[in-house]
């Protein structure tokens, strides 16, 4: 992944999570991954378009998703209902949008598509021919893996 794209995603994740969930946001070490990936239980997707194509995937366990959605709504959710799902997708949307905004300031025109969310056990995301950057973030509610796969339109 192009070096210039990395920081905007890392910073956006950190800033938004800190603002929305309070303190205690820790960044794990970045790394690269290829091949299909087993999802932890809940996956929110935001598409990227423009001079690049790709997507950002937010991967977390159901427990973490419930805890985060509860915190963001100021009430305890016991199942990930429509409201819970909308909350997680909004989180994904905010992080991606802020990254896209930062990238724009750097001169890269990205656009994002409305987010989608998938839940289920034993789900696997298969990307053909794609390498992804993994940004692990650890919050009080658990771990979120932000998986960014983006490539230039050649």
């Amino acid at each position: 992944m192009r070096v210039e794209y990395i920081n905007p995603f890392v910073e956006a994740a950190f800033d938004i999570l800190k603002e929305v969930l309070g303190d205690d946001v820790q960044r794990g070490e970045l790394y690269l991954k290829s091949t299909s990936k087993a999802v932890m239980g809940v996956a929110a997707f935001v598409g990227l378009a423009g001079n690049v194509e790709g997507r950002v995937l937010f991967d977390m366990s159901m427990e973490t998703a419930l805890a985060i959605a509860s915190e963001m709504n100021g009430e305890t959710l016991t199942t990930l209902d429509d409201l819970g799902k909308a909350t997680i997708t909004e989180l994904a949307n905010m992080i991606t949008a802020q990254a896209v905004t930062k990238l724009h300031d750097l001169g890269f025109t990205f656009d994002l598509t409305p987010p989608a969310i998938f839940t289920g056990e034993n789900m696997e995301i298969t990307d053909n021919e794609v390498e992804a950057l993994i940004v692990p973030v650890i919050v009080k509610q658990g771990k979120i893996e932000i998986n960014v796969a983006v490539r230039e339109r050649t």
Partner: protein
Amino acid sequence: MKTKMDFPSINERKPEGQGDGGQAYKVLIVDDSMFVKKQITQILSSEGFEVVGTAGDGLEGLEKYKELYPDVDFVTMDITMPKMDGISSLEKILEFDKDAKVIMVSALGKQDLVKKALLIGAKNYIVKPLDRVKVLERVLQSIK
């Protein structure tokens, strides 16, 4: 999102959402996220505003505005939505009612996007995550 301020007691101070006649300002909320609609509803109703309608995309937003008109004082408009995005919807609403007060609410904060929306005629632009204080401030700025 938890509100950070205590609700002011209604007896001590008039809620900002009510005009001089005691009548609540009416708002149409356009956003494809159930969570955001709930957030904005909570912030505005707690301050006395009345939510008269919601829509999940730009097209529905335009139609609802036309239906509600003239009993709608302002609109909060998301940008990234399916079917018709917020900027196009803004344009169309202004075509229909040149005095419409539309406030953009978006996670995208790109400078040129903000400028574009304001140039087309949006009254204000709020970047998410939403903060109760910021939302109320900007809304009141726009409707007065």
